[in-house]
């Protein structure tokens, strides 16, 4: 198993943290991982990229991910300004943060989850921004299919202690359960 993932978000949405926690969760499953941002100038609100690789074997390569197996979109408005499907392998997976099914042209598996609603319900909000990285992380684990929600919760609690860890874990669990495939 070797999966390459590209995450599209906006600066401040926690795309890099989500990628990092996905790797930690994979670690708890006995797998290997690698997570990195796009190495440029990041600004709050601007489109940003984060990448992750998950594998059964140690990962030796360090190059950019140009042909991902899966694309994750934290903000559906990015579809209008960024080519989020660039390089996505035929038959690849797309996971979008959206309250309703969205239409994507091409032979892909498309999933959606209302991560914003989950974050707002749990009051995961900072400076008016819904913190959607942990619900998106839960949904990513579900769509990938080989990372358990238990490992995701453990990774979240390693990163945030106490109540914050608990709430983020609930957010991930809710998204894990509510993510849907568009057929």
């Amino acid at each position: 198993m070797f999966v390459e993932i590209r995450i599209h978000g906006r600066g401040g949405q926690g795309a890099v943290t989500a990628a990092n926690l996905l790797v930690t969760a994979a670690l708890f499953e006995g797998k290997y991982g690698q997570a990195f941002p796009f190495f440029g100038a990041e600004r709050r609100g601007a489109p940003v990229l984060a990448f992750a690789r998950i594998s059964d074997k140690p990962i030796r390569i360090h190059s950019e991910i140009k042909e991902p197996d899966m694309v994750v979109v934290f903000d559906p408005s990015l579809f209008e300004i960024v080519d989020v499907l660039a390089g996505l392998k035929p038959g690849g997976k797309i996971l979008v943060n959206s309250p309703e099914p969205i239409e994507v042209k091409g032979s892909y598996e498309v999933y959606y989850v209302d991560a914003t609603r989950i974050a707002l319900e749990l009051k995961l909000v900072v400076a008016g921004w819904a913190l959607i990285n942990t619900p998106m992380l839960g949904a990513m684990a579900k769509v990938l299919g080989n990372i358990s929600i238990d490992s995701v919760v453990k990774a979240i609690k390693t990163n945030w202690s106490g109540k914050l860890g608990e709430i983020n874990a609930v957010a991930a669990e809710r998204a894990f359960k509510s993510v849907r495939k568009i057929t």
Partner: protein
Amino acid sequence: MGILTLTGNYAVAWAVKRARVQVVAAYPITPQTTIVEKISQMVENGEMNAKLIRVESEHSALAATFGAAIGGARAFTATASHGLLYMHEVLWWTAGARVPVVMAVVTRAIGPPWNIWTDHSDIMDQRDTGWIISMAEDNQEAFDLTLQAFRITEDNDVNLPMIVGLDAFILSHTYAPVDVLEQEDVDKWLPPRKQLYVIDPENRYSMGNIAYPKDYMLMRYDIERAMERAKKIIEKVDREYGEYFGRSYGGLIECYKCSDAKYLVALMGAWAGDAKEAVDKLRENGYNVGVMRVRFIRPLAVEKILEYASGKKGVLVMDRSISFGSAGPLFIEVSSILSMNGKPPAMKGVLAGIGGVDVGYRDIMDIISKFVDEVEERGWFVKRQEWFFSHKR
């Protein structure tokens, strides 16, 4: 502590903590900053008992680190690119005074034009200073090498400072699993710093005084002899580290699938991982190749390079920087060594990945297979420079 998901920079910071470093002086520069940020956080939290000295420049950062070290403290600093160039004078000073210090260099291109991404121009620019200079391939090695650096530099057969190099972003800001050893285990392996003499108000020595030509030259000869001894110490420390913690890297040079290979590719740093991947794939296609990963550009493993390359049909060298008007620095080094052999292999120097240009294993497969095909077709040749600009998707 076990295995943590850490960036290369955080891995270095953890190793500095595990080494019980007592003094850290540094000035921020991208992409190094997060090393010292993390250390400063550890000191602030009371997890690490060290004195952090804030300075106004990199020149002062190394000068303060040097001062702490001659006072007997285990001292560390970190920098990159322009910061390292600004420090250059003090690098000579530290090595010339034979003071063990460990410095992490997050390799980054030099401007103008301004560029924050990886290449090896900054680290290669320090080759003549008398520092031991190494490059890590991944985050785990950045951790292990930093710990090893204290044992190597503080060995009384060496007494030279050392750079632990790691590529900007592709290691420094990339999260990967790192085995952060337990403090008590590291304590058993790495004893507190001991040095032959310590300068403090009670023990007054003069350091850096004028030396007349004959004495000066003798002291230069001593540095070179220490470098020669450092080769054995580096091998020994890496071996002992392996016996103790279960990880070693082949000392001065790691040879990956070299012994039965007809062709070798030599390179340094993180893209060696991509080269190993390329070699595995090329072998499936009948290309008989191996990777010679140079872990230390100083001291250079002259004997090992000769040994590993002996009988090979061709050696390709990939450089991530150039010595303008000549060739890639690693090519200059490796080709001069291989020319000592009566029957040198075919050689080519490829310049790639400069200023952070992304080079993946598919690119390296193309570069290697092209070289092999050329040698098989044309026979023996030497090409000092070939620039690789484009890359595949």
